[in-house]
């Protein structure tokens, strides 16, 4: 069983190859996409079930030969933000996201701060990125476990209530 499922959304494959290698060596299941369109297709395929998404803010909306899933003429320089908005529209809770970027535009950075667990500015340390992935993945797991547990507890409470209610009636 893998330690977690990771999606890397980065158009510079030379950059994510070492990240992929390091993650696979640590028994993570790694998927990748080089455009926002490709990322959305992967997310659909796996029903948005990823523990961590590593997202480049300046990812193109589509690659050569791809039919974009986004409105044409969109600002590719905000590709990462546009992708995240699309994710939020489909999966309410979103996906725990770590941003890797060179974008210094304060407006884009502020927008990214709103949803990212951590932002890494290139060049960054592989070790630190791996630690962050580990941390976010763990907390995501704990969150889901707690959520599941709470869900079960709520269900039990509800069924007890309904059974008591039934008796009263």
């Amino acid at each position: 069983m893998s330690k977690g499922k990771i999606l890397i959304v980065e158009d510079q494959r030379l950059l994510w190859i070492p990240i992929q290698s390091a993650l696979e060596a640590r028994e993570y299941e790694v998927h990748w996409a080089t455009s926002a369109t490709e990322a959305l297709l992967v997310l659909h395929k796996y029903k948005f079930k990823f523990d961590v998404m590593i997202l480049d803010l300046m990812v193109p909306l589509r690659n050569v030969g791809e039919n974009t899933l986004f409105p044409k003429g969109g600002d590719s320089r905000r590709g990462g933000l546009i992708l995240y908005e699309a994710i939020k529209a489909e999966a309410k809770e979103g996906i725990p996201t770590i941003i890797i970027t060179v974008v210094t535009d304060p407006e884009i950075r502020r927008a990214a701060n709103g949803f990212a667990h951590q932002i890494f500015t290139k060049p960054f340390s592989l070790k630190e990125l791996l630690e962050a992935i580990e941390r976010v993945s763990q907390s995501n797991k704990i969150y889901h476990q707690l959520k599941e547990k709470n869900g079960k507890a709520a269900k039990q409470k509800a069924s007890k209530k309904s059974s008591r209610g039934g008796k009263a009636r």
Partner: protein
Amino acid sequence: MTKWEPLNSIVININEELFRIILRGLCGDNWFSCEIRDRSDKVIAQFYTLNGNATLRGLAIEKNAPIYLERIRTRIGNVNVIVDSELGHKPPLEASKLIAQSIEHRVERILLDRQLGVRDDHAQKIDSILDQLTPSQDISTFWEQVNNVVDQLCPVIGAIGGMYVQPQSNSPIKAASINYFSLVDQIVEITPQMITVLTNARPKIIKVTISDLGNSEFEKVIKSQGLGRTRLIMTVPLLLHPDIQSRILFVIDDLGDERHLLSIEEDLKLLSIVVGRISTAYSTSIRLQEQQLIALQKDRLVHEKTEYIHVITHQLLQPLGSLVLYCESLLDEQIGFEKKQQYSRWIPSIARSWAGFVYTVAWASRREDDIFQDSPDVQFKACKITPILISCAIDMQPFAQEQQGKYVTVDTELCEYVDNSAQVKLSELHIRQAIMNLIHNAIKYSFPKSTIAIRAYVDKHAMSITVENIGIPIQVEEQNIIFTKGGRTNLAREIDPGGTGLGLFIVSEVMKLHDGSVSVHCQANPKDRSKTTFVLSFPLHLNKR
């Protein structure tokens, strides 16, 4: 010789009163008479007008002393004034002339003053119309205003003259003026000679009549235009703007009527005010427009600078980020040996492509016209192109393979044939960079798993290197901009948002350095998979370095 004697104690005092009297005569009384008295209240002259003929008789007449009498005739306005006088110490002719001139001069001034009084309303009206003119940074809006103002002014100015702009000007003033001047029989195009004559004649210009001009050419033109004496058209150069070369055009109706002539000087003043106000508002508008342009240019420059720095930062940090990760991967105990071996081979390629980018930025930051002129790296020597092309392909291979399994091939057979057939002197460093840029683009914009083919050809005129890919098409209208600094196609911006738009500009500059050229050919096919070929062409006869 006639002996002239003084008229004892009698002095004719030509004072304001006299002129008021004359003016009254000019007012059109059929018959009017009055007395002129000296300081001791003695009648010294009688004055009357009859049917427009005014006669001034001095006291001497009454005293019947005709010996000193000299009749002076002058014409003031449309009234004949005859001064018969017996004058002081000077010979009558000379004195009479002086008096006549003085009278004439004063009457002119008084007439002018009178007309000015009449014109006051006129001037105010013109002034209030001109007040509508507001300088605007939008010149077309300004001309609309001028058009509107001229429309309103024409009926007002119509009484006094008009404005006309040179035929070559497209100014709306011209249209309006031509409209107005449709009332004039014909408009005479004034020759430079005429202008000289007219200009030299100023300020006496209002006195000029056709026959007095003494300029046969002018007269000929006027006559040939059939204007005769009834209408004289004059222009006075007046600078609205160097491009417009406006002139005030003047129409003098009925030269025979001197009263009209007297008003013309004032008309000129009014017209100068009109054109002056328009001219000032126009200059202010131009200044505002320039200021706005400067502000816009400044904004654009600031924006471009920010964008440029942003893109460069992005492009510099990307390979640096990769290098850091690969180096760290080599130390990662959990990554296998084979991968580490592969990474250690890639690290120099990434570093070289990074260095290439740094060169690109450094070159592009120089002025376009001398981008390589003072570069110490420019060294021409006879090179074989096969090894250059192969090493470029090898350096770009990792990048190609990792970009959705693309592959760079070099047709070595063709390249070696070229090397055996022709020897070209190249600046190797620069040519390498140009080819790397072309391969880099071909990889970025080609379809997954496609091949980027590098070939070379030679004929008796030129040696060519081609880089070909199957990918997104470059529209014909975009083929010119891709070789300019920062020029990118819309599709390229979408697919590679971090691109600099410098790669092909550098290629173009490198080819200029080699007296060669770069061109692009796009062959579209039905599935929107276009074959794009970039051709670097080195003319052999020019390659004599």
